[in-house]
């Protein structure tokens, strides 16, 4: 069930009415049932997988908290890790491993009888696995209290607004909210609805429109000029931002209507002044997860220099791999690690030559914002390309093909509209940056009348320009 569907609006309306009509004691169970109904609307079998992962971590958490013996704690933590990650590895990475094994065997001149597995990736598996593991790890390190009520815990893992696309919540932030006695507040309803509308606009008007052009160009990059590929890459940068942050906004907005506060997941990442700043603003819930549960336990930056470089590469590459089982995602992660290190060395050089004062100048900040955006766009080539060879072809063509002809897609009107929407998004982001417009749940500086018309316009924009999944498709151009 997608957020941008009438089925979800109907489902959510029922959940909202029933949730606030129930006595407190029944609400968490209801949310749990509703979340499983939401998940099972896609493929009911995978609900058992989610239930299994939830129970493993719930039980492991209890066992970890019941003992003071370190070895026993470690044992249960390892059990939780193995049993939680195994389904993820099987469904998401098994075919990648088999594929690369076969390539290796063929290269060495051997033969293998291995065949690919016929698996469907369960929706949200990467998200609920990481969310479950964060709990077990936090209990192990005593960063959170153990949960003794399975219904509460299962509801925390399966909570439908953030189940399939995040944000990846921490038990210390979300689990405790299931124990609160939420009262209906119209203020929260309005706040949540506003964020949902903005998220829906970003997704169906901007992201889904840009994807039409990007899919066309990246589908056969060899047929297009460097200029066209550049445009498609920038379009993709905006598409993935609007798609992901749009979905996060809809998740956070829906949760808010029910009285829950989910964490902010995007904080104007394309206005970041450095790669490290970008990763503090992009998919915040994932980057903090990797920082807290991988980078810091590996020693973070409190290790020898070469070990730190190694840590950076491991974290970014695994982060890339988390996104998908392809070499393109691994390279994408590796590029970000490289950019991060280059930036670090650049900062050191500025300091060495006593030039770090330039960081205070606005021109330098603007230069850095543009540079970070360009570097991130370059990395996106690898994230989006259908293969490594395609990614290299696109990169080389962008760098060397100076033909200025830009393919405008099947419709010039759609192409021009796409550019206008990107400019519109930029203006809104700047207004959010200067705290004039609302970001997350901040109070805007505009008048109530202006805000009122703004949301009416967004709704009209959605109805007029929103792309439907079963739209009219014309094959002849």
């Amino acid at each position, binding site marked *: 069930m997608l957020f941008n569907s*009438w089925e979800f609006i109907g489902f959510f309306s029922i959940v909202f009415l029933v949730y606030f*009509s129930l006595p407190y004691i029944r609400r968490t169970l209801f949310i749990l049932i509703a979340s499983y109904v939401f998940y099972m609307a896609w493929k009911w079998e995978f609900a058992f997988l989610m239930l299994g992962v939830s129970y493993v971590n719930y039980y492991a958490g209890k066992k970890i908290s019941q003992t003071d013996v370190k070895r026993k704690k470690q044992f249960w933590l390892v059990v939780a890790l193995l049993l939680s990650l195994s389904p993820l590895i099987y469904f998401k990475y098994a075919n990648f491993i088999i594929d690369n094994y076969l390539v290796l065997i063929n290269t060495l001149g051997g033969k293998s009888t291995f065949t690919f597995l016929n698996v469907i990736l369960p929706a949200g598996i990467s998200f609920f696995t990481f969310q479950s593991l964060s709990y077990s790890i936090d209990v192990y390190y005593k960063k959170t209290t153990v949960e003794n009520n399975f219904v509460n815990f299962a509801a925390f893992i399966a909570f439908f607004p953030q189940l399939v696309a995040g944000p990846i919540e921490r038990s210390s932030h979300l689990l405790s909210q299931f124990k609160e006695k939420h009262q*209906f507040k119209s*203020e929260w309803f309005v706040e949540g609805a506003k964020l949902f509308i903005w998220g829906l606009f970003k997704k169906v008007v901007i992201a889904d429109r840009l994807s039409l052009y990007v899919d066309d160009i990246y589908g056969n990059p060899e047929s297009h000029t460097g200029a066209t590929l550049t445009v498609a890459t920038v379009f993709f940068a905006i598409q993935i931002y609007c798609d992901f942050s749009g979905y996060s906004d809809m998740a956070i907005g829906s949760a808010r209507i029910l009285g829950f506060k989910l964490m902010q997941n995007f904080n104007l990442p394309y206005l970041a002044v450095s790669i490290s700043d970008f990763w503090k603003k992009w998919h915040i819930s994932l980057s903090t997860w990797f920082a807290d549960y991988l980078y810091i336990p590996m020693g973070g930056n409190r290790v020898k220099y070469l070990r730190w470089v190694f840590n950076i590469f491991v974290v970014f590459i695994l982060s890339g791999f988390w996104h998908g089982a392809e070499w393109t995602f691994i390279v994408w992660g590796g590029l970000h690690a490289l950019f991060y290190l280059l930036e670090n060395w650049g900062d050191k050089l500025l300091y060495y030559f006593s030039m770090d004062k330039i960081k205070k100048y606005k021109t330098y900040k603007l230069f850095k914002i543009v540079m970070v955006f360009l570097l991130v766009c370059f990395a996106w080539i690898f994230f989006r390309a259908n293969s490594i060879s395609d990614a290299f072809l696109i990169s080389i063509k962008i760098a060397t093909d100076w033909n200025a002809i830009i393919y405008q897609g099947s419709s010039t*009107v759609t192409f021009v509209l796409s550019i206008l929407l990107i400019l519109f998004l930029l203006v809104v982001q700047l207004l959010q940056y200067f705290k004039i417009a609302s970001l997350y749940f901040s109070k805007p500086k505009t008048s109530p009348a202006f805000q009122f018309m703004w*949301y*009416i316009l967004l709704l009209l924009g959605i109805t007029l320009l929103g792309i439907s999944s*079963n739209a009219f498709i*014309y094959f002849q151009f």
Partner: protein
Amino acid sequence: MLKLLDYIKKDEKFSKNLKIIIFSVVIFFACDTFLGYFLTKGLEKYYGLNTSSEVALVGHSHLMLGIDKSMLEKGLNKSVAKYTREGVNVSDRKIMVKQLLQHNPNLKTVIYGMDAWSFTGEGLSDNSYKLFYPFLEDNNVDTYVNNQADFSDYWVHKIIKTSRFNEGLINSSIRGYLDNWSNLKIGEVDTLQLKKEIALGRYRKIDNSVENVAILKETLAELESHNIEIILLYIPTIDLLNGAEKNKFKESISIIENLSKEFKNVKFISLLEPWSHDHSLFFDQIHLNPKGQKVITEELIKKLNLKK
């Protein structure tokens, strides 16, 4: 529910927020209705619906790019409605004809675009009924769309008028108000690439369906019953493509010729010869470029004026 009502009573801002929400819904639907009306009227102007036009062009992009409306009007000294839409099949065109018959009282002649793929079901478009959402207030269109769309899709578009549009239709609507009907695709077909594609079998295959022929017959019969003159017009398609399936191509032409003989008011004008061999007229294998549009429109004017 009692609990919810209890919260509402305790919520100090509820009354204010409820008024805002209700007011928002009212304003939204008011804007939606106004915008929907404005865009629909523009679209009617663009397609020549609800006008005093005596001649109407009915077809898909093939006819859209094949004929210059303004040039045709000057040449015939008659007003012309250019009701051509990308991806419309024979079923869609039946509805388009019904709209013209209902809303254009002075209609005397329909120039109906034909090609060898007119009776082929697959490969033109998907969900073409969605093109008719802006005209849901028309009973014929409403019935047609209701029979094709699923329940939620139909009712969403029925209730929210702006959801019936997209940027292409908005563009057409605005152009209707600006009296801008030019449809141009600039460029020349890459014949080398086309030959390769044809050799690989990468082209839309002709598959004449009895059902589609029957639908066209119904359309022609309805037009004839209103004493409307019908011209089945074959705007040239490139000879390279025409020759890819010679037998099927001949079969399609034969069907069109037979239809013109079956109905008194129907005439078949084929502009295939010699124009299908002049590759400089084509943007791609079936669509004409601006040069082709000019040449073919002039040719059509000559033929129509001769028939008088």
